[in-house]
């Protein structure tokens, strides 16, 4: 029977699986298969698995519970192996890599930060800081809005300024948080966010991380909003071994 695979861990992990339920309508029980110093956390895979909210939450809950108890290498959602033997074979094949990765990730968690500007505040700030743009805006306003081509030309100029500002603010945010992180990775761009970045930080640095986030929030009050997630399993850092070679 097919197995849904959640993560790999080391054999020393306490694996608190008893109270957890896996993906699928039945909420299947979780168990571990072992190979030497490694373990894989799996459950029976449901038929017709799809990325439903319920199952995404189940996947995430399992991984958040396990990362709280020790290092994990998280699978991407929806990873299914044909049977137990295939899982053990993968642990065997990749034993060196997975062991090194778990060693490297031990004691660390992922924190994700998304930033979104308040659009009106951003536009007002760009105008306040640029006399030419301010003059063009006033001229259009004086002309009752101006022609459509004038509006497009001005709007394009504003869009360029917005893009530059998004890039600048993303760099600021990363620079402010990077000193507390071992690694950082830009996550996929998401709607309305000028930055979506994940940091691999020591578990013990989370309070410091939160303190810096609080300072950034204060600095950006009314101008941009920051949304912070974690402690997450290190989704964005599963290639940390390759990256250092």
């Amino acid at each position, binding site marked *: 029977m*097919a197995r849904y695979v959640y993560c790999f861990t080391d054999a020393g992990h306490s694996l608190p699986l008893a109270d957890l339920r896996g993906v699928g309508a039945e909420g299947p029980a979780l168990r571990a298969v072992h190979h030497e110093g490694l373990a894989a956390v799996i459950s029976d895979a449901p038929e017709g698995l*799809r*990325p439903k*909210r319920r199952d*995404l*939450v189940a996947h*995430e809950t399992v991984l958040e519970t396990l990362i709280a108890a020790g290092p994990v290498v998280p*699978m*991407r*959602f*929806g*990873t*299914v*192996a044909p049977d137990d033997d295939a899982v053990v074979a*993968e642990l065997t094949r990749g034993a060196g890599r997975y062991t090194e990765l778990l060693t490297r990730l031990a004691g660390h968690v992922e924190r*994700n930060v998304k930033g979104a500007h308040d*659009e009106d505040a951003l*536009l*007002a*700030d760009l105008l*306040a*800081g640029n006399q030419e743009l*301010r003059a063009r*805006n006033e001229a259009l306003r004086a002309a009752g*809005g101006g022609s*459509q081509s004038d*509006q*497009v*030309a*001005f*709007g*394009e100029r*504003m*869009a360029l300024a917005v*893009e530059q500002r998004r890039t600048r603010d993303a760099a600021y945010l990363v*620079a*402010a948080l990077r*000193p*507390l992180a*071992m690694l950082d*990775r*830009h*996550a*996929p*761009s998401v*709607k309305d966010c000028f930055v979506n970045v994940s940091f691999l930080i020591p578990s013990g*640095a989370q309070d*410091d991380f939160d303190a*810096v986030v609080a300072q*950034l929030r204060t*600095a*950006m009050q009314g*101008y941009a909003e920051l*949304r912070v*997630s974690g402690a*997450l399993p290190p*989704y964005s850092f*599963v290639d940390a071994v390759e*990256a*250092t070679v």
Partner: protein
Amino acid sequence: MTIMAQPSSSGGGGSAAGALYDIIELILDRGLVIDVFVRVSLVGIEVLTIDARVVVASIDTYLRFAERCGRLDLTGGRQPVGLPAIVGQITEDSAERKARGVLTGAGRAIADTIHDIVTTDGHGSN
């Protein structure tokens, strides 16, 4: 069905359920992929991630920016936010926190090496 559109406060009450909206692209687009294992098909799921530059660079966006700028109240000698100076201070504070011993020098050296390798163009590596 669009997962993104669902309110994040409706499910469960656990942290994972509450925060799902903000980490869904990590669950679906990051994490380890093993070639010999099957991955569930994402066909039919609304594209979750976008190229932000494409959204900004469109005629609709230009017109919207122009229209919104025209409606902004810019009276009162508004001053720019002055973020550079503030963020500079925060970055110094962050480095100071690091210096208090959270990170080892060796660990940071590894991280710096990786920074040289990993792209920072807004998309990162896959």
